[in-house]
């Protein structure tokens, strides 16, 4: 089987060193890599044909990145498609399903043999005149209008929810096929949050690039900004100081803490266990406020900058953070442990929204959703970059793949993140906020991975001959994981939907971009 190239997290390589395979070879490499070698699709995307070093005037480039988690290696290859049709790998590689749908939508390529070729974000193709569904350039593309999977039968009914939901939450459409309370099938249609970020990134960086990164998924500002910074640093050869690496790590873990703690509170709220709901609701704010101490913004805006960080951490701040964190640790422990000691909570969490390990593997899940199925997968461990090269974090797992496991993994990670931050504060290297990130290497490509609180964030940056972005691909962890929520609901109760949804708490805007 033809080999792809090999790279590592955050290492730039010349485009010419990314093996360009014939379409059939490329397909074979991808299928073989996932099916036979146990690799995982990290990213698979289209690009203008000249963006990936191709010369064909027509057609598009396809680029795929596969992860070999056990060895910390990334395998990469590309091909040129004629830009009209391509043979789907989904019959053999389930986890490519959404990637192919996305390529189809963005570049107007039809994937032959794709079992479920539907739009993802409901927009026109980037290539005028090419549309995978044969729609004209001025056709209206109403969101959420698609051929939903339907179950027929006398007692089967359909429940449609969204895009506007009951709570304060981002928009998405959920279509349930139910038999009474029982859910036979759930289909999720997103795209309502589509703001055109990837399209706007081409030709950058511009003065808007950082805001795009910081708001791609605004609750993951640090995670996405770190992946971006890592990509730019690799392409420009900037050397980040030890201080900046440590501050980034602290901020990334604070982001994890705020979200994990907030979600455990929200899970408790969804089952009306109010003590944990209210304590964690407040404690989430305490972690956001710690991030605001670092950089003035509760969401970490302005903190991560290519070349380092926008703000350093003074010794007064270190002291202050340490004492706040110590107090928060006691409060969080008390608030969360109530969950595990309350039978009514366990009764609602256990066995609800189960995803099997096989399904989790097949879908290529990432983050706590994967780890709750017993999968050892964590960028900080498998593809360490920055501070995580020096501090080795064990991967936290649970084994039932249900709401309880997802909640419990979060709790394990909360404890670990607090310890990590405290140890970083103890040995914080002095000085060095930001090194200048110079011009980026032309005709190059880099894959940058970060473990955000939802899981693996993957950015792939490609530069043109002038060292500008010819393509910038963002994969939020939610992109891998949304389908798992649909599976978690299968054969469950429709009334469990809010609880299941919150246990994943996936990003709509991070998916829709």
């Amino acid at each position, binding site marked *: 089987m033809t080999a792809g190239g090999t790279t590592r997290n955050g290492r730039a390589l010349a485009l010419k060193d990314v093996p360009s395979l014939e379409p059939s070879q490329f397909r074979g490499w991808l299928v073989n890599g996932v099916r036979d070698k146990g690799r995982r699709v990290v990213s698979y995307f289209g690009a203008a044909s000249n963006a990936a070093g191709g010369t064909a005037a027509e057609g598009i480039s396809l680029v795929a990145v596969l992860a070999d988690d056990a060895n910390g290696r990334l395998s990469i290859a590309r091909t040129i498609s004629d830009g009209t049709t391509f043979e789907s790998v989904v019959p053999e590689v389930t986890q490519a399903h959404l990637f192919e749908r996305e390529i189809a939508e963005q570049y107007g390529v039809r994937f032959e043999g794709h079992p479920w070729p539907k739009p993802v974000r409901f927009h026109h193709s980037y290539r005028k005149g090419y549309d995978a569904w044969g729609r004209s350039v001025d056709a209206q593309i109403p969101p959420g209008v698609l051929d939903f999977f339907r179950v027929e039968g006398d007692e089967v009914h359909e429940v449609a929810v969204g895009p506007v939901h009951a709570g304060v939450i981002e*928009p998405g459409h959920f279509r349930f096929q139910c038999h009474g309370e029982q859910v036979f099938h759930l289909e999720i249609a997103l795209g309502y949050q589509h703001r055109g970020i990837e399209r706007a990134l081409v030709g950058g960086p511009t003065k808007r690039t950082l805001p795009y990164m910081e708001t791609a998924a605004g609750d993951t500002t640090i995670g996405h900004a770190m992946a971006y910074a890592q990509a730019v640093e690799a392409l420009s050869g900037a050397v980040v100081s030890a201080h900046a690496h440590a501050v980034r790590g602290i901020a990334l873990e604070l982001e994890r803490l705020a979200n994990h703690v907030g979600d455990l509170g929200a899970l408790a709220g969804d089952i009306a266990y109010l*003590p944990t709901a209210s304590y964690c609701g407040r404690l989430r704010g305490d972690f956001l406020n710690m991030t605001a101490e670092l950089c003035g913004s509760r969401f970490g805006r302005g903190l991560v900058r290519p070349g380092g960080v926008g703000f350093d951490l003074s010794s007064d701040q270190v002291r202050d953070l340490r004492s706040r964190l110590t107090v928060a640790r006691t409060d969080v422990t008390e608030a969360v442990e109530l969950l595990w000691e309350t039978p009514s909570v366990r009764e609602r969490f256990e066995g609800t929204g189960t995803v099997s390990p096989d399904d989790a593997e097949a879908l290529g899940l990432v983050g706590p959703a994967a780890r709750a199925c017993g999968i050892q997968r964590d960028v900080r461990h498998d593809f360490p970059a920055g501070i995580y090269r020096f501090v080795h974090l064990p991967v936290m797992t649970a084994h039932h793949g249900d709401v309880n496991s997802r909640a419990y993994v979060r709790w394990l990670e909360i404890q670990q993140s607090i310890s990590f931050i405290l140890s970083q504060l103890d040995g914080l290297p002095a000085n060095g906020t930001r090194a200048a990130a110079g011009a980026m290497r032309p005709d190059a490509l880099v894959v940058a991975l970060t473990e955000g609180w939802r899981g693996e964030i993957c950015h792939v940056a490609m530069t043109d001959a002038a060292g500008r972005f010819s393509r910038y691909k963002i994969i939020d962890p939610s992109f891998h994981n949304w389908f798992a929520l649909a599976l978690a609901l299968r054969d469950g109760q429709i009334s469990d939907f809010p609880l299941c949804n919150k246990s994943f708490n996936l990003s709509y805007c991070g998916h829709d971009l």
Partner: protein
Amino acid sequence: MLKALLARAHQGHRTMAYPAGAPPPMPERFRGLPALDPAKCPEGCRSCADVCPTDAIAKDGPLALDLGRCLFCVECVTACPEAAIAFTHDTRLATRRREDLVLTGQALPLADALEGKLCRLFGRSLNLRVVSAGDCNACSSDVNVLGTVGWDVGRFGIQYVASPRHADGLLITGPVTENMRLALQRTYDAVPPPKIVIAVGACAISGGPYAGHPEQHDGASSVLPIDLFIPGCPPHPLTILDGLLRLLGRLEEQRRVPRG
């Protein structure tokens, strides 16, 4: 059970004293209302305007900063050679009119309370339907946080409700993506009149970082009439609360200064 009671005792009462008492302190690096000193601008200098990601700063005439576009990043402050722009700790930013958000060095005309009948109707009970229309989930989160014990907007009679039919108005975040335009319009139509609309965050006011993208509509005023603008990216919860309370005429300082 005993543990739950002990935890209750230990976690204590956490609702802040504000607005009767002092607001929670802002962190040292917090960026609130910008203070402009146009007198400091060197002739022809455009350093701030050139780096502003959302073109919130105009330098065609005297220095002007549009809070409705501002992301409260630090680019302009860093770029300015004369320290003509500085972010203060002032969290009060909400206005009733879009044009009031353009700062030129004058005091920001903070939001007045709703007029007569509306104020009587909503002043002590305001039910809002929150619609995220392309927001990045940071604005949503800090709107949501007002419902937690620390902020507890319920004490002012403000509630987020599940159905537009139960609402007195909409609170909108996000630039209004094309894909949410219709849903937003329909949600608005479903709110019984009289109704109000509140735009929270740079996105909902101007499109924020996405302004100009064809995938969105540069904010909620492209679709609906707006009664209150709350700037920020995202606005601090205190800024949102301050805006809501001002709109309802619930702040002491509003009562002390009768409106003309």
